[in-house]
């Protein structure tokens, strides 16, 4: 029976304002990994984004820095030409989520196919979904990052969820 939406994991709680540049860098790295799925690529992209922020971005103390970095990381990930292969997910899933080895394999396959399906979404839907469901940002923050209205962001998230549910769950 349905119990309501699952609580976000503590490590992925991105709602609080970043307290330091290191914390901001950690968030950007997590976000870049969710887009390119390779740690080396993600670290290079985050490094480039911070380097760009020194010349073209807002000041370090400016609250606009975080949205600017999210936007820059997004653009760098989308424009990335040389790409290393994505890291396999099986080693990184929480073993406590599976009740048996066969369940673990089934869950790994399910999440792997979800990752592939997210990669095939249109860019706007993919970014909105990742920021909402995987970075746990609220719709206002996402609208600020994507420079869209809140209603447009809600529509992108809705379309992404429906596309994924249709593809993976056989929903109507």
């Amino acid at each position, binding site marked *: 029976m349905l119990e309501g939406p699952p609580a976000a994991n503590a*490590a992925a709680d991105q709602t609080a304002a970043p307290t330091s540049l290191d914390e901001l860098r950690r968030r950007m790295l997590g976000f870049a*990994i969710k887009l390119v799925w390779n740690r080396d690529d993600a670290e290079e992209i985050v490094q480039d984004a911070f380097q760009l922020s020194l010349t073209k971005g807002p000041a370090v103390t400016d609250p606009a820095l975080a949205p600017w970095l999210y936007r820059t990381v997004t653009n760098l990930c989308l424009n990335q030409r040389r790409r290393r292969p994505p*890291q396999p*997910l099986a080693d*990184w899933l929480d073993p406590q989520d599976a009740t048996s080895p066969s369940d673990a394999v089934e869950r790994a396959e399910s999440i792997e196919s979800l990752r592939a399906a997210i990669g095939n979404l249109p860019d706007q839907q993919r970014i909105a979904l990742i920021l909402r469901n995987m970075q746990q940002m609220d719709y206002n923050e996402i609208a600020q990052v994507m420079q869209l209205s809140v209603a447009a962001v809600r529509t992108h998230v809705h379309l992404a969820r429906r596309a*994924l*549910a249709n593809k993976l769950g056989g*929903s*109507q």
Partner: protein
Amino acid sequence: MNPRCEEIQSRLDEWLDNELNPVSRAEVTTHLTECAECRDVFTSFDLLNRNLVGLSSAADRIATAPRPPRIIRPFATPLRIAAAIALLATAGLGVRSALHRPDSPSQIVPPPVVVAENSAAPTIVASTPTLAVSLPTRNPHISIVMLYEPVRLPSASPAESKPSL
């Protein structure tokens, strides 16, 4: 789809985002216990939401995992040292040859200096008059001996010695 199901499913995103107030949530929950079609839709979206959390956790583990140690090749350091020595030796020879480039043939052959080795007190025998300066070192058996050639003052010209009348 009947209007009630349509209305309930329009709250799907709010339900997933945990934005429903308790009354609306109770209405949705009650409807889901009665309507299998809506229950299937909500179940598939619920599964999707849970898998998204799992995917997000995997990404966070990738981001926070310690980096693997660098592979250290055992022969890398000796090879580098050997290459550095060879480079320094080559550069040293080049600098030395540049500094000691002979200007005249007389400088090619150094003046003969012979050190008598088998005597108790070493004797320096030079073919030309030479000033020897001995500098002691910490080792009593070793001294640094510096040999200076005598300074030759320019001789006065005949015109200066014999003023013309």
